[in-house]
Each structure stands twice: as C-alpha cells, then as structure tokens.
C-alpha cells in the first residue's frame, strides 16, 4: 500500500472519529436537558425512548416502507426534473433572447419556497402521487435549468474555439466538448437540485400524503408522539447526508480530481 493511501485512510478514520465524538456530545446534551426536566416528557423524550421507537418502526416495517415510498417518489420526480430542466436549459442556450429572459426570472424561481407549490398542486392535480411529484419537480427543475444554462455559458470560449478549429461541430461538439466542459459546474447544480427535491418531497408528504417519511412525521405530530417525530427527522437527516456525501459529493470529487481542480495551494 502506498504512503498516500495510508495517509488517506488515517484521515478518513480521524474524520469518522470526530463525527462520532460530535454525535456523542449531542446525545449527551440532549440526555442532560431531558434529565433536568426542562421540557415535559411528552415534548422532549429521552434518546433511549427515541431509540425504542426506531426499533419499533424498523421491526413493524414502517420505516423501510416509508423510506422506500419517499425515495421512489423523489427519484421519479428528480428524473423528470433533470430531463425537463436540461432540455429547457439547452433551449435557453440555443435561443439567446429566450435564455436571457428566463434567466432574469431565475432568482425568483430559485428562491420560491417548495411548500408554496402545494396548494396549487392540490387544486391542479389533487391529493395523489402525481400531485406530490409535481411539487418536487417544480421545486428542483429551475435549479437544473438555470445551472445547465449558466454552466454552458461559462465554458471558457477557448475550448469551443479549439474544438471548432479541429473540426468539431453540431452534436459532436455538444457531446465531446460542451457537456464535459460544463460538467464540474453541472454537478454543483445537480447537488443543489437534489437538496431542493429533498425539501420538497418531505414538505409535500407532510401535507398531501398517506404514506412516506413526511407522512410518519406528521402522524407523529397528530398522535403527540414526539419520539416518532424525532425518529423521522433523524432518518430524513441521515438520508440527505448519505446521498449527498456518498453519491453526489463523491462524483464531484472524482471529476474535480480528474480536472486537477483541487490542486490549489
């Protein structure tokens, strides 16, 4: 094993140790607040009580079922979002004044809260899967669209000049230069869109669904079951973290390393 991999392992281990320490400290403070009785038990259960709820919802299948449903909706909507967002983004590049106009609305579109789509979606589509997916798509599609547009526009012109000079044009230019040149920046847009979708799917499920993570969160509230609320929140946090860290971030790191973008000293 090379020196470098050893160093990397050591660093990963240190990172994990630090994270574990942080979590332990957090649980410690939580337990302390519980023991001091600052809040009534029904408002703030102890870490052990939440752990018991976790065991319960894992063994009765609720957790996996909810996670599965939520991720299913999310992935389906995200795929739609990427397809539409990318296509509109490319159209914005192709038709300059259209792109410019749409781009000038981008701040409003990006800042628009996903929850604010819910009433519209309920009335337009209804309390069903498509209604939820609609909210998720609307919450992430603009992010994909704007990032596609700006990533391509920010490609250094010299890459395109060089490629054209070597005879690349049309689809070949697009496939072999435009897309790869825009990729590092596209990935950042993808990560942002992912986190928007994640916000949106949970929000929509709280208000519009009878299954899913957002739903068990809202059931917990209705039955005054704070343990279930916290267990759902921890699950939401963990999935959000894992997907970003082990999928999207990994992907970004890989591309950045290939380009040599992390070699700044």
């Amino acid at each position: 094993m090379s020196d470098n991999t050893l160093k990397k392992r050591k660093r990963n281990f240190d990172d994990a140790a630090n994270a574990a320490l942080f979590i332990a400290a957090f649980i410690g403070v939580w337990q302390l607040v519980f023991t001091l009785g600052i809040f009534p038990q029904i408002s703030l259960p102890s870490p052990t009580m939440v752990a018991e709820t976790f065991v319960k919802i894992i063994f009765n299948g609720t957790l996996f079922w909810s996670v599965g449903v939520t991720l299913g909706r999310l992935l389906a909507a995200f795929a739609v979002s990427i397809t539409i967002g990318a296509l509109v983004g490319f159209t914005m590049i192709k038709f300059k004044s259209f792109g410019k106009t749409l781009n000038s609305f981008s701040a409003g579109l990006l800042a628009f809260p996903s929850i604010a789509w819910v009433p519209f979606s309920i009335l337009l589509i209804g309390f069903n899967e498509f209604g939820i997916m609609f909210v998720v798509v609307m919450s992430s599609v603009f992010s994909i669209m704007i990032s596609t547009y700006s990533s391509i526009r920010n490609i250094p012109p010299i890459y395109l000049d060089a490629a054209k000079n070597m005879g690349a044009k049309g689809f070949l230019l697009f496939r072999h230069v435009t897309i790869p040149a825009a990729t590092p920046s596209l990935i950042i847009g993808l990560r942002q869109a992912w986190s928007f979708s994640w916000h949106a799917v949970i929000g929509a499920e709280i208000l519009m669904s009878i299954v899913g993570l957002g739903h068990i969160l809202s059931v917990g509230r209705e039955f005054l079951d704070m343990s279930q609320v916290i267990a759902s929140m921890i699950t939401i946090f963990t999935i959000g973290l894992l997907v970003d860290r082990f999928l999207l971030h990994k992907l970004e790191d890989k591309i950045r390393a290939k380009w040599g973008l992390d070699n700044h000293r």
Partner: protein
Amino acid sequence: MTKLQARNIVKHFDHNGNSVAALDGVNLNVEEGDFICIVGPSGCGKSTFLNIVAGLEKPDSGEILLNGKPISDSGPDRTMVFQEGALFPWLKVIDNVEFGLKMSGIPKDERSEISQRYLDMMQLTKFANSYTYQLSTGMKQRVAIARALAMDPEILLMDEPFAALDSQTRDLLLVELQLIWERTKKTIIFVTHNISESVILGNKVEVFKNRPSKIKKEIIIDYRRPRLAEDENLQKYYHQILDELKSEVIARTKDEIQ
C-alpha cells in the same frame, strides 16, 4: 506554390460604442513550406489576423484563399496552437491528441497509430495517460503542438505558443520546432511579440504596423538551421526588425496615453 493568400483583410472592433480599426488591408502571400513569423506591437491585431486565417473570426472585408479557394469556416486544415494551449482538462493527453482525428471520424486503430507517432515526436509517450493538470506548461504546449500536427493540417497556425514558458523551455522548443518544420515540411504562421523568437524561427518575418494595422515590412531570413538563440549572426536581423518596430511601439504608447 502559393499555399495561402490574404487579400486586403480589414477588421474593425467595437470599443465602447466606437469603431476601432484593427486591420486595415493586410495582404500576405504564404508559399508552401514557408515559416512565417508575424511580429508587431502589442494590440496591433496580429492575433486577430491569425484568428481570421483560422476562420475563428470573420473579416469585415477581404478574403483568405487556401490553395486558391476562399475559406469559409474554422476547420482542421488550418489547426491552431493557442497561447494557453487550450487542452481539454477532461481528456487524457493521448485523447487530447486524438481529439481532432476522432471528430473527423478516423477509426480507432488509425487514431492511435497517428497519436503514437506525434507523442513520440514531442517526447510525450510516457505521459500519454496523464491528465493535463499533471503537466508543466512546457509539456502542455508540446501536447498542443502534437494535437495540431496530428490533424496533418495544410497550415499550422501558432498564436504566441511560447509566451508563457520559462526561457530554458522556450529555447528547447524553439530548436525542436525548427526540426519538426524541417521534418514535416509544414507551412507555419507563427505570431509573436518576441523579436528573437521570430528571427530564430522564421524564414520570413512580417512586421505589423501599429493599428490600424497592415504589414509594414517583410524581412527574409536566409540562414542555416537549426538556429540557436545565442547565435551572434542573427543579431543583424534582430536589429533590423527592432528598428522597424521601434517607431510602431512609440506610436502605440502614444495611443494608449491619449
């Protein structure tokens, strides 16, 4: 045989709403196998002229003829080596060299045969699988040259390709480029602001006037190769070009102050 002809090339730029004349009737005949160097004060439009020859920019009037036929677009028959190399960071060295061949639909086997040859010529074989960020500036320019030569262009266009190099690397590449020119018999147009570079490389040096620019003088350098930077006999050409340029640089500075 005349390889390339520039006929009365005129180009204006829009600068804060004012039209600035960059090129004001550039005429140039390039013979097959010529090594033409273009020197001129900075901002005189020499790179613009090269971009027009490459087809990356359009002239306001005038035309470029390649083998007697007017050029329309940018194309692989006139490949350019850019100042910054313009290599693609998402491709390995070997894929950068093969890029143009791939675009023209040359099959894989033939591509790797060609890229091997030019990687070898530029002493890059060991780095074939490196990414560009792993290379020094000098090696990047070698890749850029290999990439341009791999296209087997009618004319090789070079836009200050050695401007960013340290002087040792530059001296080395100046010799290598002469050897490559003799070996491949390529027609080359090389733009530079560096007079010694032009004297070492060119068999003809075109001195550009301050803008609105045209060719002020052509100096023929008939001297044995490979020429070395330290060769004292080249001094007289150097001074001849310097004299031509001096008044232009002064004019240029005056422009800038006003």
